[in-house]
């Protein structure tokens, strides 16, 4: 009976971890292309989900609403590149980081101004109900989310490693000036990657919105993605998924088995502690790229 419970906690944690990975992926994409931690990722998740449910509320069918929102997110990505990033080419990463902080507040405000502040329910047609596998309850929705996350990671990993554009993205991330000097169109690359990050935000927004309702609190799901990034590495797409699995399983097992000894409620800080412990051994994260700078 107890091993069954252990298994349930473990499986539940792994599946929860995939949900964290979905958000972490958006960060990885931007970081890989620009070397910048995108503070606005949470706001993008909110913007995407809120746009989708609001368009749907106008009577637009699901798939058309999805396509319209995707178009909107790509437009937003291109707009961000044109208005926010392009003037900051070759500026230090901290400048770009500060710009994404401003962008985050702007997007949160814009989303609420355009679509309103109301909370919306979101049903994707997959019930968040359990099915019994030998006494272990597994959520159908979690399995669906895991499948979506896995597909996304596989597609992005292939994109970055096997396509010309993907290699160009990696070159840009390494050095803006060097990439430009060999003819890589930095501006186009950034627009594409922000567009793809918008798509990832839409997927994360739909899955998280379906679980929590589409509301401002969606911006908070990034808190779950941060330890995943620290552990998996900021530049690795597979790292985001492996990091998510470790963090998800780790925090659930810790809450259930260690929590009672320290009064419970450790789920928020334990993943950070776990990630920091990993950093002691691998400062660049599990799959992050090693940087050797000569001075």
């Amino acid at each position: 009976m107890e091993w069954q419970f252990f298994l349930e906690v473990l499986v539940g944690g792994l599946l929860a971890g995939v949900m964290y990975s979905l958000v972490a992926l958006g960060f990885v994409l931007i970081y890989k292309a620009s070397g910048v931690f995108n503070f606005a990722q949470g706001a993008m998740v909110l913007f995407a989900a809120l746009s989708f449910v609001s368009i749907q509320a106008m009577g637009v069918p699901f798939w058309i609403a999805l396509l319209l929102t995707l178009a909107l997110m790509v437009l937003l990505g291109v707009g961000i590149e044109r208005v926010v990033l392009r003037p900051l080419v070759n500026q230090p990463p901290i400048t770009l980081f500060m710009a994404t902080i401003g962008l985050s507040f702007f997007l949160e405000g814009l989303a609420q101004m355009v679509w309103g502040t109301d909370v919306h329910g979101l049903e994707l047609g997959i019930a968040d109900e359990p099915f019994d596998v030998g006494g272990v309850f597994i959520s159908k929705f979690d399995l669906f989310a895991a499948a979506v996350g896995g597909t996304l990671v596989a597609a992005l990993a292939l994109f970055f490693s096997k396509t010309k554009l993907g290699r160009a993205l990696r070159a840009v991330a390494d050095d803006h000036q060097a990439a430009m000097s060999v003819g890589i169109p930095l501006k186009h690359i950034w627009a594409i990657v922000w567009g793809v990050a918008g798509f990832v935000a839409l997927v994360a927004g739909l899955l998280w919105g379906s679980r929590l309702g589409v509301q401002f609190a969606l911006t908070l799901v990034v808190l779950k993605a941060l330890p995943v990034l620290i552990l998996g590495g900021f530049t690795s797409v597979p790292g985001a998924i492996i990091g998510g699995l470790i963090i998800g399983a780790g925090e659930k097992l810790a809450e259930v088995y260690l929590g009672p000894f320290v009064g419970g409620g450790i789920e928020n800080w334990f993943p950070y502690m776990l990630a920091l412990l990993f950093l002691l051994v691998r400062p660049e994260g599990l799959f992050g790229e090693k940087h050797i700078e000569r001075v």
Partner: protein
Amino acid sequence: MKKSAVAVSLALLTVAGVAQAADQFIPIPSYRVGAYASGGAKFYGGMIDYLNYVNLKEGGVGGVRLTYEECETEYKNDRGVECYERLKAKNGGASAFNFMSTGITYATMDRAEKDKIPLMTMGFGRADAQDGRAFKYVFPLITSYWSQATAKVQFLGQRVGGMDKLKGKKIVNLYHGSAYGKETIPVLDAMAKKYGFELQHVEVPAPGTEQQSQWLEIRRARPDFVLLRSWGVMTPAALKSAQKVGFPRENIVANWWGGSEEDAVAAGDAAKGYIAGSFALDGKQFPLIQNIEKTVYGAGKGNLSDKGFIGTVNYNRGVVSGILMVEAIRAAQKKYGAKTLNGDQIRWGMENLNIDAKRQQDLGVTDMFPQVKTSCQNHEGSGYTRFMQWDGKDWKPVSGWIKADTGVTLPLIKASVDKYSQEKSMKLRDCAAEK
């Protein structure tokens, strides 16, 4: 240029005209943007609609027009304090503040005491502030957190066929990992001791977006009921997680912070059957709500951008807040005269509220909220809570008004007040001498 100068002067005169000597100023520290805007816009919309209704219908209170000014707090403590400071002395002085935020209330409590401006904390904390001897300017009107917690247990007693039947039952208290969430632990412990049920406290780290491990623990513990002390996104996350582990939503009972349409809609089908406490019923069946729609919105002065939200839970809570504020002004005018009154005089009015069945009928709000009778010592004035069940579309009452178990709450309040007065080296008010 000249024309613009004249226009500006006229505009300034108009603004100044709003704050004449015969006006009563009510600050509105609202939150219409940010994480909690959805509920805040409706709550303060309802409150403003009621103030406008009184102006349109009666020309104000005793001939004194009600004026108001909004200040956006975003539900943030620093912004709330800033709003307090900005509005406290405006337009002849603030009547009273209702921040609808435990955090901002705590942050402004000492200032309000010093400035002699009452804080209306309808339905929330701090619970021991219902003792007006120690908290002269704080009013947890209708029901405090502690009163609600005892009402929740009594509601469960009704569900199982009597309080004696709770003996041996297992109840989980799933609470928000914050000061707010922990506030009812001692009361529930006392209730468990009194009625002999087994109580397990399970903390959800704030903000509560992920609750898988907590609900797996709950599934393992196999409780009869879960008392949910949630806030914001924690509510739909709890309901979805309960669905995921197959826990019946009919056996989850939340406090009023988890009992609005926003909380239920966000959880979709998972919310069906879920129960939450309430101190103000929703719906448009009340004559006052209908009259507000007719009079205020008919005159084009409605505050909501979408009339469809009239009668929602948070809207009606806002109307109740407006009623309590206006009734306090009416009570104070009886003592001090129909003129602009200061915060301390409004405090007296708030301490002498008497909204009985007859008054509720006159106002057109019979049974919308419990009767309220306050005093120098009793700043809560009621202590009743009613329970509602979400049927997938609306909240439906599933209990009558349940009175707080004062046998449990009063000793705890006394102990807390004694500690507070010792810490502050303060002498409690002598209410008998103030009569």
